[in-house]
């Protein structure tokens, strides 16, 4: 077990290094750097001026060395300009060449400076991750139990009417990406002119103009059912269908096993067979699926936060990518890749741990 975990972690670190290097080189392409130079210094620079600005700010050296500096395994650059001033990667806030640390990268906790928000990247990231974790928490609370119950109910008696109805619902929900369901929800529940809100308001059932709020901006201060229901529902819906289908497949497979038949034959009630014998074994596969669902949730988070204007991680990522904020985009990528890889690791280890039939040599 231990060697398996260690090997998995080794592969994970290798993957993380390769992926971050890819992101680093894609965000540091010459056209991106030229844009950065023009936005930071002057929009009307000539090509030569751009080159000298880039060289003077440490962008002139090979990609691999700059990646090392950013990661914190290569010493940060120090350049003495012609007029005698010395600049360097680690020379911030009055530090001199003697007092500054040699390494200042990701590993030392230096995430860089965001050019869009004019703040250190770790502050921007911390704030936005805080917002997103609330969103994720509520999505999980809504999505996982709903999906599991739907899946177990439809897989319990394969081919029954309940199964047909629930399966159709699951297919429909996987066919509805977040940007579609979000739009439909807003039109249906959060529009003062269309959907059901005008009807409800006319009948006096709701006090405000709309049943739910179409933006989640106010949820950043205080989360209420009114402003948070639609974003949570939008993300959860796409995942519910998928997890429910996986649970259903796993449940139908378990229900055809010999030991279930034996239990039924010896007179255990159907209810007890499902609750005590089938459920435990049927929930192993969905566990993996839920864990692997995280990368998809990340997609959903980006779309929903843009749609509902909720300034979390996804919104920050869009801002960073749209405004050529290289440091912030890199940091976002690191977080995203980290989340994906860690959930993969947990799902792998958890699967082995939960399933007694797998014995590792």
């Amino acid at each position, binding site marked *: 077990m231990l060697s398996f975990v260690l090997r998995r972690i080794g*592969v994970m670190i290798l*993957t993380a290094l*390769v*992926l971050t290097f890819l*992101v680093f080189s*894609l*965000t540091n*392409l*010459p*056209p*991106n750097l030229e*844009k950065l130079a023009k936005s930071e210094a002057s929009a009307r620079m000539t090509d030569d001026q751009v080159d000298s600005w880039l060289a003077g700010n440490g962008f002139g050296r090979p990609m691999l060395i700059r990646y090392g500096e950013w990661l914190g395994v290569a010493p940060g650059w120090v350049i003495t300009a012609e007029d005698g001033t010395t600049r360097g990667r680690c020379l911030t806030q009055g530090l001199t060449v003697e007092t500054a640390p040699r390494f200042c990268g990701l590993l030392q906790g230096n995430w860089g400076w965001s050019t869009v928000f004019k703040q250190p990247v770790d502050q921007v990231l911390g704030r936005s991750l805080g917002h997103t974790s609330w969103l994720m928490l509520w999505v999980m609370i809504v999505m996982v139990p709903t999906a599991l119950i739907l899946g177990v109910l439809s897989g319990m008696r394969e081919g029954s009417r309940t199964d047909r109805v629930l399966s159709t619902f699951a*297919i*429909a929900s*996987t*066919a*509805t*990406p977040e*940007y*579609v369901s979000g*739009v*439909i929800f*807003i*039109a249906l529940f*959060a*529009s*003062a*002119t*269309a*959907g059901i809100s005008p009807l409800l308001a006319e009948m006096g059932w709701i006090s405000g103009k*709309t049943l739910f709020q*179409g933006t989640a901006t106010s949820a950043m201060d205080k989360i209420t059912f009114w402003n948070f229901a639609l974003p949570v529902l939008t993300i959860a819906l796409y995942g519910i269908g998928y997890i429910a289908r996986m649970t259903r497949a796993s449940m139908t497979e378990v229900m055809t096993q010999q030991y279930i038949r034996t239990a039924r034959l010896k007179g255990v009630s159907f209810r007890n067979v499902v609750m005590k014998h089938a459920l435990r074994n049927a929930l192993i596969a969905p566990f993996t699926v839920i864990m692997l669902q995280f*990368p998809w949730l*990340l*997609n959903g988070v*980006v*779309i929903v936060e*843009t*749609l509902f204007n909720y300034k979390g991680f996804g919104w920050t*990522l*869009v801002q960073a*990518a749209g405004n050529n904020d290289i440091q912030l*985009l890199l940091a*976002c*990528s690191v977080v*995203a*890749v980290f989340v*994906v*890889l860690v959930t*993969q690791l947990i799902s792998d280890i958890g699967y082995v741990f939960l399933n007694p039939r797998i014995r590792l040599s």
Partner: protein
Amino acid sequence: MDPLSWPALLGHAAWRLLPVWIALAATFALSIGFKRRLGLYGRLFESNVGMIGLGIVLFWVFTAIFATQIITFDPLAQLSGMKNALPGSPLKTPVEGAYSHYLFGGDSLARDVFSRMVMGAREVLKIAPAATLFAFMVGVTLGLPAGYFGGKLDTSLSFLANLVLAFPVILLFYLLVTPEIVQTGLPMYFAAVLFLFPILFFAILFNARYKTDPPRRNLYVGLTLALGLWAYAGLAFNADPTGIFAMSPNLLNVFVSVVFVNSPGVFRIVRGLVMDIKARDYVAAGQTRGESPWYIMLWEILPNARGPLIVDFCLRIGYTTILLGTLGFFGLGVSPESPDWGSTIDDGRKLLAIFPHPALVPAIALMSLVLGLNLLADGLREESLKD
């Protein structure tokens, strides 16, 4: 002129779609008539789910084919006074010989929502199936040897596939589908690698089959290479002298990114299927007959893996449609005027709470197409399991 009521406007829209209904009826009548002779496709008409799915998919396919006949206005034309017009509004200043109403209303730039939806179907169906097909070529060509030979090849290819899969799709799009990337020419290199796989696939396919019959082998492989390299030069490098095969740099970028995102998934499925099938007796029999590995992979394993692959193909077209919509929704890679559904949803969402129709129409269109594909896949799965 009066605005149309809801039933009237739906009737008018259905009337505009007349070519689609005729084509649908003809297809269904012919298919049901000959269903015994049509194999898996014919058996699709035994299951309700499959028939509904196929119906929805064909509806959009025919809409895309007859789009120029169906549209009531130029999808880019902006008519005065029709800004955010409600569904069924008559034209403010009627034009001689033009259609009298905006059937599904006007968007924030006073363009006809109905015509944009119809043309959007063409935009989506132009890219999604082709991109999925290319992803399948890449996935199959790499997945077959990885599953069959195993070992170092498998380990390294799987590592690469997992690498791409570990990337959140949206991040990948934000990195790959940008004007800066087009400037660097990176999509061209990507295309140069990815577009090579279909040629490779067909060349190996014919070579393995007709190795013992050199004249025929030379003919087929030669044809594949000639046609393939011609298309390759045009699509990847925009260097086709006749100009038949050509793609704009933006479209190429979108296409390549979608293929790139999809192929690792296909690779994993093919690899899994091959590992399962290669333990069968008929593969061992082929090996003892001295058949070449590629013959076994392409002519014995691949046909036997077709069921799950066809099902996955349908699902994956739907997924690709969702991805293309995502790209449009974030305004990546497509021209701002493009009528594709994703960008139309993005345009419409700014005034969503006041005028929902410009965003709602393409949203429902996209959802129905993906739903149709999912139902079709479900029907196919059910029918292919009956074998």
